[in-house]
């Protein structure tokens, strides 16, 4: 009998296991593949590793702007991939160590929920039956396949992000279907490596829900670098290396060596016996309340499987909410200050309300913006580049509602903005915070003072 059984060893699962184990609960974790989930094995970490190599290459190519001479800048894709694999392996190993440290029993087998008994929830894995008082479902998500007629998913040219991270050779040309976060990161990576990249996006903007102004800036930035971005373009057909899309009422066909499908992700709710205990779904994901409880008592869900906020850091926090409530401290999930980062070069970072969302919700706000070059450090390290920092505050009290930035390394600054939003800090409090000088983060302070 375990206090907590967890199905899925991704960010939600392993974080819950670690926290619960540390608090003395007996925890069993089922993972059919590798610990770390999509994030560690085929998502966040491998892409960021490769993107860093690409950024270094960008810097090498632009070294002369900084007075540095690089005779011949080049890259070794195999070495890049080897390094990526090494890092993934090390981090996955690290998760395993954490599980051991916290006395979490890890079962590397597919789990199947069998039902409920008087004792608890029964889970079958291999030939063994396990019983737990509480169950946490963290089965994550997979790439969503768009409804394109006669799509041959087995085509060697058609890849999702997972296969893209296993390719052996940099393609000469690449068509990316879907200009969201994943699509644009791959566009950034392969554009840096010299691939002819074309992004086909159905909407009239890239980066989905991100701030319109920043989305446009990144589009212009990438267009200048030679990425072809086709907006309001609907893919009609994919045949081998050829895709046909409709734009402005005209249908056009283009070819590429590889075609990446990055049209979002969908929760995995089938194949592990959810139906045996009657867990209710909402949309594609598992329905949960603010304490991550499902409709079934003692059954929780966290991470991508809820289909709500498909981000590793959301999953971490959701997992902690579950563990806190299980161990006697009242906690609930808040989604108002979840940062959202696009790790392109340059990075686009955002937390809180965008102007569009604030308008939709009828929130009265004031907005101020400044170019990133107002921060001396940004000037020093980003020759010839520009970016933007945009802050939304409440009209009446000046509480920080949203912070949006384009420029490196904005991803590292977002937690500060998240703290401001979580704490409902107003301009007055923000003005009293000391920002280290010289850092790019000072741009936030500059904008605060420009209201």
């Amino acid at each position: 009998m375990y206090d907590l059984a967890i199905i899925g060893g991704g960010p939600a699962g392993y974080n819950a296991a670690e926290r619960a184990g540390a608090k003395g609960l007996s925890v069993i974790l089922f993972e059919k593949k590798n610990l770390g989930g999509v994030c560690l094995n085929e998502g966040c970490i491998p892409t960021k590793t490769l993107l860093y190599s690409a950024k270094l290459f960008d810097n090498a190519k632009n070294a002369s702007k900084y007075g540095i001479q690089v005779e011949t800048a080049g890259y070794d894709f195999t070495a890049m991939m080897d390094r990526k694999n090494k890092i993934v392996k090390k981090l996955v190993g690290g998760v395993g160590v954490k599980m051991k440290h916290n006395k979490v029993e890890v079962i590397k087998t597919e789990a199947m929920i069998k039902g409920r008994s008087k004792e608890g929830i029964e889970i079958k894995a291999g030939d063994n039956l396990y019983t737990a008082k509480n169950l946490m479902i963290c089965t994550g998500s997979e790439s969503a396949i768009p409804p394109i007629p006669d799509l041959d998913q087995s085509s060697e040219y058609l890849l999702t992000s997972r296969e893209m991270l296993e390719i052996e050779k940099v393609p000469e040309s690449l068509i990316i279907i879907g200009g969201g976060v994943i699509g644009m990161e791959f566009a950034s990576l392969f554009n840096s490596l010299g691939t002819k990249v074309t992004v086909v996006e159905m909407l009239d903007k890239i980066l989905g829900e991100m701030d319109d102004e920043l989305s446009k800036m990144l589009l212009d930035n990438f267009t200048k670098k030679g990425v072809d971005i086709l907006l309001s373009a609907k893919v009609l057909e994919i045949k081998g290396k050829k895709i046909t899309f409709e734009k402005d009422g005209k249908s056009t066909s283009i070819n590429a060596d590889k075609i990446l499908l990055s049209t979002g992700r969908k929760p995995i709710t089938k194949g592990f016996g959810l139906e045996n205990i009657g867990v209710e779904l909402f949309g594609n994901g598992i329905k949960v309340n603010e304490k991550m409880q499902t409709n079934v008592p003692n059954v929780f869900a966290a991470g991508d499987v809820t289909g709500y906020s498909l981000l590793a850091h959301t999953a971490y926090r959701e997992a902690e909410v579950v563990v806190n409530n299980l161990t006697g401290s009242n906690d609930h999930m808040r989604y108002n200050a979840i940062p959202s980062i696009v790790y392109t070069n340059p990075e686009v970072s955002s937390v809180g309300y965008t102007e569009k969302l604030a308008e939709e919700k009828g929130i009265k706000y004031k907005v101020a913006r400044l170019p990133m070059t107002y921060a001396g450090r940004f000037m020093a390290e980003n020759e010839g580049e520009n970016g933007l920092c945009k802050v939304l505050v409440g009209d009446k009290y000046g509480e920080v509602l949203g912070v949006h930035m384009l420029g490196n390394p904005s991803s590292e600054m977002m937690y500060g903005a998240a703290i401001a939003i979580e704490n409902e800090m107003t301009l007055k409090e923000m003005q009293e915070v000391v920002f280290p000088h010289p850092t790019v983060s000072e741009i936030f302070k500059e904008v605060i003072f420009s209201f």
Partner: protein
Amino acid sequence: MAVPVIMPRQGQSVESCIITELFKSTGDAVQKGELLFSYETDKASFEEEAQESGTILTVFFKAGDEVPVLTNVLVIGEAGESFEEFTPGEVGTISAVTENTSKETTLVQEEMANNTIHESTRIGSSGGQQFISPRAKHLAEDKGIDISLIAGTGPGGRIIERDIIQAAEKGIKMTPLARKMTASENLTSRISGSGLAGAVTSADLAAIAQSSGDDYEISPLSNIRKIIANAMHQSLQNSAQLTHHLSADARSLLALRQQAKQKMSEGDPSNITINDFLCLAVIKTLKKYAQVNAHFLGDSLKKFKNVHLGMAVDTDRGLMVPSIRNADILSIRELSTEIKNIADACRKGSVDPDILSPEAASFTVSNLGNYGVEMFTPIINLPQVAILGVNTIVPRPKDLGNGVYGFVPHIGLSLTYNHQAIDGGEATRFLKDIALEIENLEVEF
């Protein structure tokens, strides 16, 4: 020369004040104009300045003590001087200083907030009844602090202003936005909220405001409502009323109504209703019971010779009870017309106010049968002795003779009477007679 400093009287009604803080203690040197102590009444807080320079010879009270006004609080003088004579309780201690006392009426909230407050305030541990100074209560409301979570440090655990200030400063973790909102929008808070580590957020405040603030509206009573409210309350307060329920076979009533309908279809202009026939039966019975057709006057009973029948009428503006004077001399047609006319007049607002007075009627009928009411306890229009409530007609089993039972329509009757005026037996006989009258009603029209 040693001079006592008294607790000033702030207003005629103030009997005592609470010392909120002492700025000087025994042995301290004090300059004229320096602050000695702060204190609060139920309505405001004040500060007391030294009128003399010297040394504090003694302080009789400590912070938090409730001190009767004009009582000596401390003594200023030269070191070594005697102060025994000023000890509170001694006769003659109230000196001429009274008039000189500075009446510093500045509010000291700001300064209080900046001062270090030594005693700790326990939060979240109080139970039972709470005493709070109105001043503290006001501040708590201003700052949006839930006083049930504060333990007072005043006399007997009474919550005083500084408790609120402390709670506001330390006790409740609020986001800066929530703090600003409570200060400017008069919102109340809880001790913990849904933000980081339980901080109260703007969303919490909004939720509380929604659940406790604006979900009602206070509308003043109309004049007629006030009069009804008063009359009904007076009736229950000033009489010994109770209700008997009984039902009468309604077949005759229904047959009469059927007859009236028949006549109407033949061109008769009168629409005589069940209520009209029923009133007729009541009037006939009242003629036999003078002690019910009466006003109870405390030491006498005013028995009416004629029946002045009050009729409860439901109108948009409220209940009205007009009376039909000398109803016993009216034919059924006249009675029917009269009932209709006065009910219409009430609804239109054109009724003669004289006939609305409870004294105008000798007995009242209130008919709720139309609404399907099966039983109720009408309230007497004092000084009348009784009121008859008429209920809906329902089928009841009845012995039809020879052991045959059938369902027979019965009309319910609820008689409320003032036991001060008549007894249960009389009331029952009267009610039974009404039932008999209804069951055997024969009317030519």
